């Protein structure tokens, strides 16, 4: 099964590459994602989401009367390569707009290239606050940085009745950023902050950290990590007999994968997420969600990947909308157009607001954030 998918995606890739040289009558969008290395799984999901968007747009006649073409390149989960890929997409493939580059350090490495060549990029996943506050006017982010997420969470906090929380976060920009921003927000609300523990990206055994948290006097743990580590954490927390409320953040949880892999250990955990593929009706754009989910299933991808791949879908649709608005495939025109668009994204309206130092602001949209709970092996909206 998987093998077929691999082959299918490879053929698609090869076709894309061949078409790249064959047809000049397309509008190119660069896609800079990790397809090998540590983030290969997530990068591949995002790319698959992006392809659904491109196919959908092209089926409807494309943009400005031309087909859009994704130029997909692997940045190997490595910042140096991410910069090199940006260089290639801009100078070789002449893509007027790009999407990328998943991880924050990858995106940060690409950013000087955007300044150098004055090409805008839609940032679909990266969460470091820095990205939109550094003063890079070519950055347009649709994913919520941790401060946006924490601001959204602020509205729910009172209902949860939190008193004292510990943090267990992945030791990278994402985890550290979450611990900082959520910590600040909670302190302001009078919630006590207990332990702040970290785990290495790729670490498999977190028993030591969990044992420490188990022994602390707080009642809730905020966890930030990608799905694989979350699965391990839930299993290990259960094995240690830890009975605290767990809330995860960041929106890369793939709850279905967690349910499948962690089983009963996932019951009772809560997740802050930015997309609700389970309940298309409750999303801001039910039709689009239903279409995306059915298309995703039709292509034989694992449902669990939806919570990551929708970013690729939204990212491409954002880029396409900007091209349409700009009226030409020109980087500067697209950059200007990105400020004017209003795309019905799967997790809310994509409208860019200014962020960062005056005169060279980056764009940041404000996606919705939801709290869901896993109960009896199913995803449920948390109701209060």
């Amino acid at each position: 099964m998987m093998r077929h998918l691999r082959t299918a995606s490879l053929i698609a890739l090869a076709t894309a590459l061949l078409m790249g040289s064959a047809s000049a009558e397309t509008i190119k969008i660069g896609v800079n994602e990790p397809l090998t290395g540590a983030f290969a799984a997530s990068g591949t999901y995002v790319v698959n989401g992006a392809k659904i968007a491109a196919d959908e747009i092209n089926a409807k006649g494309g943009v400005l009367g031309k087909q859009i073409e994704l130029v997909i390149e692997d940045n190997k989960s490595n910042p140096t390569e991410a910069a090199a890929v940006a260089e290639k997409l801009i100078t070789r493939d002449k893509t007027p707009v790009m999407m990328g580059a998943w991880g924050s350090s990858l995106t940060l490495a690409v950013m000087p290239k955007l300044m150098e060549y004055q090409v805008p990029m839609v940032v679909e996943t990266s969460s470091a606050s820095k990205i939109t506050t550094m003063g890079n006017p070519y950055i347009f982010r649709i994913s919520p940085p941790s401060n946006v997420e924490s601001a959204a969470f602020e509205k729910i906090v009172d209902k949860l009745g939190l008193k004292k929380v510990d943090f267990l976060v992945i030791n990278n920009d994402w985890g550290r950023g979450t611990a900082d921003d959520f910590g600040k927000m909670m302190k302001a609300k009078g919630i006590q902050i207990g332990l702040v523990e970290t785990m290495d990206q790729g670490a498999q055994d977190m028993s030591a950290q969990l044992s420490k948290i188990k022994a602390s006097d707080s009642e809730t743990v905020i966890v930030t990590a990608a799905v694989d580590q979350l699965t391990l954490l839930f299993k290990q927390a259960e094995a240690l007999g830890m009975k605290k409320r767990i809330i995860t953040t960041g929106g890369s949880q793939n709850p279905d994968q967690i349910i499948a892999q962690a089983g009963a250990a996932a019951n009772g955990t809560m997740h802050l997420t930015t997309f609700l593929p389970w309940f298309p009706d409750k999303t801001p754009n039910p039709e689009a969600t239903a279409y995306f989910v059915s298309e995703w299933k039709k292509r034989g991808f694992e449902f669990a990947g939806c919570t990551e791949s929708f970013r690729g879908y939204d990212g491409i649709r954002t880029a396409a909308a900007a091209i349409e608005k700009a009226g030409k495939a020109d980087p500067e025109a697209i950059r200007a157009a990105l400020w004017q668009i209003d795309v019905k994204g799967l997790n809310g309206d994509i409208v860019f607001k200014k962020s960062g130092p005056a005169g060279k602001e980056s764009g940041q949209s404000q996606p919705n954030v939801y709290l869901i709970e896993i109960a009896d092996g199913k995803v449920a909206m948390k109701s209060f």
Partner: protein
Amino acid sequence: MRLILSILAIAALASVPLWLSDPYLLNALITTGIFVIGAMSLNLLLGFTGQLSLGHIAFFGIGAYVSALTSLGFDVGLPFGIRIVHEPWSPLAGFVMAVLVSALCGYLVGRLSFRVRGAYFVIVTISFAEVVRLVALNWVELTQGPLALTNIPPMSVGLPGLGEFIFRTKLHNYYLVLGVAVACYLLIARLVRSHVGRAMRGLMENETLAVSIGIDVTKTLTLAAVVSAGICGAAGSLYAHYIKIIDPEVFAFINTVTMVIMVVAGGKGSLAGPVVGGLIFGLMPVALRPVMAPEAQWIAYGAALIVILFIMPRGIVPALTQWMPRLRRVRRPSFSKRGIEESA
């Protein structure tokens, strides 16, 4: 003959931007060049003293961080209430500091780790790099940890009477990297042909004999480690000011592996080895990118490494220098031509 070849090679490299306008390839050449400098420094240890360091990226990363921090400034608290505040200096000062601090680390690591040899030395160096990585990751106040140091300024040099020259464009950086690479090449060449280099070769070939004629093992090896680490730090500095962001990922083991591959495949112990190996393995991903799937590129990369080592266990350059004279029907290998006549 050797001199003419070298001048031709440098001239060829210097002319690249004249006929190659593709910025993507130029970018690949610049990053490859930076890694080639790292590989040359590794070759000084591996090829000329026989000590395999698998933690060489540590010096590269230290150089990158030191250079970035020197030119960005920092404000960091230490135990006992000590607080260090550093105002930004020029990138050139960062470069100098990078070389000095890396060399100092090379000295410390050398003093401590040359007590062990072989597999043990390999593991100590890996461990060193890993510990440095974890410090860079966790000492958030200084390094910003995983949040990365960003906005690193481009390299600049103050020219007397002409003001400040800033290496902004790729062309500038290409010649900067080429210049530093040539300087490092000359430094290493001079060093290995000096009496210190002879002592290093002696230690590598027959340590007992070398010791018996009065060569000081620790001093010689430590000197090699200091120079090697300093050069690697310089490469790291160039990297930081070119890529303009540095995060703990720079210490990834695969980066050390890349350097080792460049050295061993090119030919350890040959001055040109890391350059040839570096250009091949640095540019191979660029060549593979358009022709195969991402995973397949890596498989090809690994397979190429295995095949090269099976065909040319001593590396590409030594294999070529052995074949070429044979083709010209000269029996004597080229490296035995130095000698008395020349000196007389």
